[in-house]
């Protein structure tokens, strides 16, 4: 068997195992985001949103926040999946099954990232379907939607992988989502347009990578964005490239994995 064929089998194995895990513990991986986002839709979208009126070109507040909430759930699910799954493998030492195999590090990384992206995508579809119970949406640029989902999910999968590599205990895995990811998400233009902010907050907000993901996705769905879509994709591609290189470097060096 050629190396390429063997690598494909190995990649398929890692991805399949991740998806089986996601589906096996679906009450932990798929249902909580759906419940949380439903509450967001009811409270912010319907109850509070009805008093806010139209926003940014005639969209209801509900329509305005849906793309941000969908993207928020995609990236947090991707991050949570890879950080808990890979750290769990480290904790149980089952990661050694892969480390002693001839599988190249990049296949391991890609497999975990694709698995995490799969969870992000499933959760994204679920929260989008729930949103359609509350409002109507037309996808103006479906390719932009697809590309922003893939890139946003990939960025946070890679970031979660790096987190899991450095984590020594389960608390370390929870630390980044609590103190970094959640604040960045809430300040990333999910619930408001950064144009509403005064300086210097508007400029500071532009240093937040989540702003670009949310706005790229919002542009795909509604056709409006606080940032230029080209810039948003350039930023996302830059993050994917930098995080991929860093994660692969850590994996090849065996940081946190090999003595």
């Amino acid at each position, binding site marked *: *068997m050629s*190396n390429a*064929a*063997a*690598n494909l*089998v*190995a990649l*398929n*194995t*890692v991805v*399949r*195992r991740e998806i*089986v895990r996601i589906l*096996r513990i679906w009450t932990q991986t798929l249902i909580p985001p759906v419940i949380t986002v439903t509450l967001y839709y009811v409270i912010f979208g319907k109850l509070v949103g009805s008093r806010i009126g139209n926003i940014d070109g005639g969209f209801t507040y509900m329509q305005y926040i849906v793309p941000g909430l969908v993207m928020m759930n995609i990236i947090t699910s991707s991050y949570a999946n890879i950080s808990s799954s890979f750290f*769990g*493998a480290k904790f*149980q*030492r*089952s990661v*050694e*099954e*892969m*480390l*002693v*195999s*001839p*599988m*190249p590090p990049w296949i391991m990384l890609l497999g975990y990232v694709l698995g995490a992206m799969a969870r992000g995508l499933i959760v994204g579809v679920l929260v989008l379907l729930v949103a359609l119970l509350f409002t109507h949406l037309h996808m103006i640029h479906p390719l932009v939607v697809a590309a922003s989902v893939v890139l946003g999910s990939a960025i946070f999968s890679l970031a979660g992988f790096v987190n899991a590599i450095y984590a020594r205990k389960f608390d370390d895995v929870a630390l980044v989502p609590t103190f970094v990811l959640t604040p960045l998400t809430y300040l990333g233009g999910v619930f408001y347009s950064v144009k509403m902010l005064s300086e210097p907050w508007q400029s500071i907000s532009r240093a937040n990578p989540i702003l670009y993901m949310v706005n790229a996705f919002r542009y795909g769905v509604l056709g409006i964005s606080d940032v230029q879509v080209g810039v948003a994709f350039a930023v996302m591609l830059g993050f994917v490239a930098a995080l991929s290189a860093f994660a692969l470097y850590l994996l090849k060096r*065996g940081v946190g994995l*090999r*003595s």
Partner: protein
Amino acid sequence: MSSVPALVVDNLRKTYGNGVEALKGISLTVQPGDFFALLGPNGAGKSTLIGILSSLVNSSGGDAQVFGVSVNRQRNEAMKLIGLVPQEINFNQFEKPFDICVNEAGFYGIPRKIAAERAEKYLKELRLWDKAQMQARTLSGGMKRRLMIARAMMNEPRLLILDEPTAGVDIEIRRSMWQFVSGINAAGTTVILTTHYLEEAEQLCRNIAIIDHGTIVENTTMKQLLSTLDVETFVFDVAGIPDELPALPGVALRRVDEHTLEAEMARTHDLNSLFSVFTAHGITVTSMRNKTNRLEELFVRLVEHGRNGQEQAA
């Protein structure tokens, strides 16, 4: 059979980040088809050596070649040749044994259909097939050990490394495990075994290396090593013991209890003269055995000798 050694360890060194020098430039060779014992006290460097061979530990110097393939320079190719049964349980306890085996094969690039056939074959041979679809955490300790052997066989390795595979396993399961491993060794797989059950090593292994404080203190055939043992102690179960023990030159006879005698003597000493003396003094022997495992005695002697040498050098 291939003339390329199954394993060549060449001046392998490992110093951990905390300054502990676990391996001090060890070298050894394992021939293809061998059943090789790698023994040593706790902390001697056995697991570090196995970790380097299986790429879980980065070496600080030297190299190891598995069937001529360098572990350092051709890691992926070398790993295809090795199967590892680690000391600690290291599979996902929430997965099923069948999935654990099939996934392991997948990591080696083995297509799922072949992997499923091999999983069935090895789980059956290790008497785990009826547990194949249960969560692994529900298995007993012995079953978990056997599962790790089945998993290590999924890539049908040419070199199988067993790092204390029978720790905490009852005698019956231990025997069935050795039956399996002996079978695959007879079929051509080279086996390296570390164990603290020295009688296992004595019975199973043809060649042996003893490692202590990161250096090889002995590397020879099992037969040759055992032949260096010059004193043996026999235990005799007897019907009764007279008040005064008989004297025999070259034999130290000792009463253990009312029905047990111990005799320490040179290996060259014949037993016939001892039995003649027993008969003359009306001592009836009902059974006899070696007091200690011979390899255990040698092992302790070699390790202690190494330590005394180090203390003197210091």
